[in-house]
């Protein structure tokens, strides 16, 4: 329902980038920023963000924070196995995006959830 506007311009200019390269975009991010490898046509550049783009989730670790792709049926997710919002045609129940709902629940197309 919401078209996410990415608040971060790509390449080296945006605020989270620490080291940068003409060809690869950001090579490393400032502390606590997520490194996302963004595909633009044939290019793939590093971008530093405070939250990963739709379809990706962030994983923090002492060395590096990275964006990783959610499962294909998820619009957004908490980790690889737990979706927080589904793609059209899928319905969310306890972190899973499925085409049908468990017994006793019905599909809500507006929320894309089993309710």
């Amino acid at each position, binding site marked *: 329902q919401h078209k996410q506007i990415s608040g971060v311009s790509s390449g080296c200019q945006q605020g989270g980038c620490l*080291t940068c*390269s*003409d*060809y*690869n*975009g950001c*090579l*490393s991010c400032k502390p606590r920023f997520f*490194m996302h*490898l963004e*595909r*633009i*046509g*044939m*290019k*793939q*550049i*590093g971008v530093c963000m405070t939250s990963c783009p739709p379809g990706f989730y962030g994983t923090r670790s002492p060395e590096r924070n990275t964006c*990783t*792709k959610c499962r294909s049926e998820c619009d957004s997710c908490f980790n*690889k196995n737990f979706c927080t919002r589904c793609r059209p045609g899928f319905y969310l129940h306890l972190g899973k995006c499925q085409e049908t709902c468990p017994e006793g629940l019905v599909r809500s197309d507006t929320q894309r959830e089993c309710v």
Partner: protein
Amino acid sequence: LERPALRALIKVTLFKHELTGKPMVLEGVFVGGSAGKAEGKLLQYHPLSLCNTSEDERQDGDFITIVKLERRVPRCLPLLDKANMALEKGAQAVIFDVSDDDQAAAELRETDSLPRPVILVDAQDAEELMGLVNKNEEANVIIEIKVESKWPQYD
């Protein structure tokens, strides 16, 4: 004694010039015992990519991966594993631009087990290739073994 490396011919044709344009011919060196032919569209990968198999960025159609290596980026995996991972993800061949990372050649020397072509490029050849990538100029690449033809010896 090691054997002298086979050189690679890298023939690049821009999609927009596909019918008329003469290909740009660049050169590189095969490593890892991987000399051979390959063809596909050129696709850049960031040096921080090819770190774990979970990044399932699937590509359709044949493609050739190009990675500009940077000394400033800590390697998440040895170069051989990165090359193998790129090939496992479907790349027909892998090109490493080693202009800024002269350790790469040494790292790939110790092996002979690469299943498809892996090529090192640097200097002018690398600059031409990365120039295309930077302008997002979609291109098709053909890789062949360069035949070192000699002048016939007149006795």
